[in-house]
């Protein structure tokens, strides 16, 4: 009996470490897509992420889902919708009639698409800024990180400005005290979501202050010439 008990004890002692080596079963990461854990892990990926923010600036998916891209906020849709609001123009397309006659409201698809596009740009710019800051000094040099951040902040300022033009009262009215735009942050936790939803809308002048901060940083850190 004794030797058998000893054999059991030996077996278990040899066995238990094997059990804990199974831990790697839990430590897997997706192979099929890049995640926030690795999106800013190399210099080339950082450059790609920056291009992604530019892409978000020219256009993102339309309100119908994830199939078509019409170019909101600053791409093709911006140009032709702006034309339809301009002068020296006669509209013969039923689709553009509501823009031409200014009979749109806050639920019109084009307005929703503009709002959605602007905020997706702002969110992607924020994700980019946070990523570049974390990669600064390591994966990319602090000068490069500052430049990338500057480009994102410039785009963010453009988005805020366009948002004010489209959705808020002019600065001249009430000297900028009217309601401006909702705030935003890098949203990826329930806490962030709740804090954003409980933050009141900024005033118009508050938004302009943000724009100026972003533009000042961009002015200081953008290079003299483009990369291309």
């Amino acid at each position: 009996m004794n030797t058998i008990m000893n054999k059991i004890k030996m077996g278990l002692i040899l066995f238990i470490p094997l059990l804990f080596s199974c831990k790697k079963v839990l430590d897997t990461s997706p192979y099929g897509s890049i995640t926030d854990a690795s999106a800013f892990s190399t210099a080339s990926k950082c450059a790609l992420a920056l291009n992604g923010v530019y892409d978000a600036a020219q256009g993102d998916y339309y309100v119908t889902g994830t199939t078509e891209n019409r170019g909101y906020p600053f791409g093709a849709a911006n140009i032709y919708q702006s034309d339809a609001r301009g002068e020296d123009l006669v509209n013969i397309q039923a689709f553009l009639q509501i823009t031409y006659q200014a009979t749109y409201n806050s639920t019109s698809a084009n307005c929703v698409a503009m709002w959605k596009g602007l905020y997706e740009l702002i969110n992607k710019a924020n994700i980019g800024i946070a990523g570049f800051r974390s990669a600064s000094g390591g994966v990319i040099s602090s000068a490069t990180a500052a430049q990338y951040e500057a480009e994102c902040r410039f785009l963010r300022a453009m988005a805020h400005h366009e948002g004010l033009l489209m959705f808020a009262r002019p600065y001249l009215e009430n000297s900028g005290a009217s309601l401006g735009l909702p705030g935003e942050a890098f949203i990826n936790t329930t806490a962030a979501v709740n804090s954003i939803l409980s933050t009141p809308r900024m005033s118009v002048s508050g938004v302009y202050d943000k724009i100026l901060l972003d533009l000042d940083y961009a002015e200081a850190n953008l290079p003299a010439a483009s990369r291309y």
Partner: protein
Amino acid sequence: MRKLILTLSVVLCFVLNAAAQDRSISGKVTNEKNAPIEGVSVTSPDGKYGTQTDKDGNYQLTLPASVKALSFSYVNFETAIRSIGKATVINTTLRSADKSLEEVVVIGYGTQQKKAFTGSSSKIDVKEMSTLLTPSIDKQLAGRAAGVQVTTAGGLANTPAVIRIRGIQSITGNNNPLIVVDGTPIITGNLAFATNSNALGDINPADIETIDVLKDGSATAIYGSRAAGGVILITTKKGSRGRSKVTYEGIIGFSSPVKKFDLLNAAEFKTIANEKLTNAGLAARAGVNTSADAYDTDWQDLVMNKNAPNQSHTISLQGGSDKTTFYFSANYNDQKGIVISNYNRAYRVRMNVDHELNKFVKFGNNLSVSRQQDGDQNNGSNSLGGAIASSLRLLPNVSPYSATGWEGYNITYSPTGTSTNSMAIGPNSQSVDDNFFNVLYTMKKNKLYSDKYRFIDNAYMELSPIKGMKFRSQVGIDMFNDYSYTGLNVFHGDGFLTGTSSNSDFNILRLVWSNVLNYNKTIKGHSFFLTVGHEAQTETAKSLSANGGSLTDPFFIAENYITGSGTSNTINGTYDTINGILSFFGRLNYDYKNKYFLQGSIRRDGQSALAPGNKYGTFPGVSVGWRLSEERFWNKKYINELKLKASYAKVGNTLGGYPYLTNFGPRNYGNLGGLGPTGVGNPELVWETSIKYDVGIEVGALNNRINFTGDYFLNDVNNLVIDVPQPLSAGIPGSIDLNGGAIPQNIGKLENRGIELSLNLGIIRNKNFTWDLNVNYSQVNNKIKSLYSLGGVPVLQIPNGNYNVIKTGEPINILWGYQSAGVNAANGNPMFYKADGTLIQLNLSRTTGTVGNFYLASSKNDPVLGTLSSLTAADKVNLGNSTPTYFGAITNSFDYKGFGLDIMLRYSGGNKIMNYTRQEVLFNQSFQNNGREALERWTTPGQITDVPKLYYGQAANINQTASANSRFVEKGDYIRLQNVTFSYTVNPVALEKITKGYVKSRFSYKVKTYGYGLSIKEQILTI
């Protein structure tokens, strides 16, 4: 559609043995009360020698020395086998085989006697199912266990059934039960790329020894994280010592649809189609070309199988020696579905071997290798090539064939002139609307095929170092490989002008390693049974697919993509590590004198889908039981078994993928590469947990001739993972319309509560005639208790598709749509109620108002249009519960001198079904065929009917397609004859006397009808 299947099944059983010297064996056979049993059949295993006991239970036999065992059998008792050593007197006690509490329940990582089991579980009678013609067991589970609801969609041969145990447990998570075969959880689901397929079809039902369904928390807690939807434990057959047995089982059947949709014939179609057009102010189009041939085509008939032969052949070999036992089986199964291009062929081989090295060490291996071939057709509800979708709409006055058409079919492809992707207009002035194809041509010429190989192996080693202790280590490998091919014809259909040839290869590998230590000890009436263990599971899925378009020659769609055959090629690949799980568990069962029972279990699971720091969850469970019938004060005269039990447990639900990570995808900026987030994850996600309560009673009366079990259960599901849509200003990718992109969060609670009742009655038990009745009834009430809050404001309902919502205080997925108010008898306008009860009508008159607008109506027969109104999403109301609240089955089994009759009735109800086919297809307002309901449409003022006026092009407004409409909501209650089986069993002893040989056989002729493809009555949105 429903199918009628006639089956003929033949089971032959050969028993082999050898011969030598004679000796005389005698003895007495008694029952458990020590009373003698007369007429017990005492035979040698090969059937060569036999006798029966006399009225004192005594028997005497002269046997050669080669006969090593005796078999004692009698109706309604368990057959006992006693080996003959040197003894010449062998007495036996036979145990009653009534569904008694003597049976053994398979629980997680072990077995337990049913009388000691304090959880809630159902044992499925596998023998009743083994002679039914189905390729997989999931479809035949319906009605066989209380609390287990099984629905099958359509009449396709290869779609898996949907199994729900005690209701729907999750909104976005997994609702399927965990299926464990021989201790290893196996891959299940509809996984092939090109066709439907059923991964559970790789297990041959003839190989199954027992099926146990674990339903409550305490039974499932040992499976911790994956047990939220219940657990189905399947044990396959093992070998047997001492004698070899060869069994052949053959089943042949013929299936035909029992019910088709009621459609218009050619003459009726011409009237209805032209009326739609003239009401809209357009010229008639049907039958206007009188010089062309007119036909009356039944498109449904053309695409459906009639008397399609199905067959299944299994040969199995079971045997072994003292130390080694084996079970081997080989099976071929050929099934046809309701549609002509649909078939499933399975080839399954199993080899189970167990070997005892010495009294301390045992090891074994269960290996199953199978191949399933599935052929299908594009059957999606939105796809143009779908067989049923097309056959309901195609015009009945055109023919599928044409003497002048390409390849003899009525299609307008021409190698020289202009070709279109349609049929010739024939007697009409246009072809069918919405580009539907000649479905007969596409079904015969397109190829959708998948070839799947499955390899499941469980290897185990068992050590028994000291008495009462057993250690078992088991490794399970489950590998699934799918080769799928889609070839779309270039002359007509989805592949028009380009042709498509695409292949995909998809591979899943799952590895499970479990180590379990069991220890059994009894001290003076106190029994302890301890189980401790560890399990690790990992699964990887990868695929590669290639798609060739613009084929150079239509020859290349027959088998496989060939290099160079297409000029536009795309390649796709995926690689995923699906959920890795690591668990530690322990369970202790204690009972005192088989009277008082206590069980506790605890399991700690980690899953890879959650963020580091949140990966682990702890799942405890406890249950108690009290066998009142064992108390001294209890008089066992009438009620011989009475047990009360209660249990509480917490189980979890695994998630898939990596919901805690934010994903980035390619977002190219012009011609520059770019990366952008495509979805935002939530690193705070934790386990979805379910707390299960159960109280139950088990009663056995009149010496177990009456068996009753009743359970009341409550499942409280917490931390439901729901994709919470954020406001658009959060900028989360994936938004649609006014709903911003979603982040998965643990928010939401739901509960399921209900009762399960199960009754077995041995109504008549005579020597020649027996009548058994089995009734089960289950009731499940589901309620959403809370959803999430946005900015502090609780959200009370969220949409789930176009027809259902998830609303607090209601069952999940209630139908949410417009309340129809019938038809205005004065002008045929369809009427609706707005949310505040106002009556409005849709104007279908070209002489007043605008067609397609809603106006107020003063009553249901006033032709005057009121002021302009509207019907908006705010007017939608609750149209009923979409999941059944009660279901069950009643089975009667009769046996008279070897002739057997089994009748199973299934019933279900408490739900409403949104008949989407009636809304979208049968009452369409396009140039397409209609259902016969269209004949009742409004035509003259004053006519009272439920079917509105026809109006070409106004289907979206008349029917409110893409929303639920109460005009099409039907009651889902039904009671249906599920199986009728008539069989004849030849008495083995009589046959042996007649044939004077060593052939023991059993012939049965079975006539069976069952409702198989429940496409009308069971259009339930399942999640």
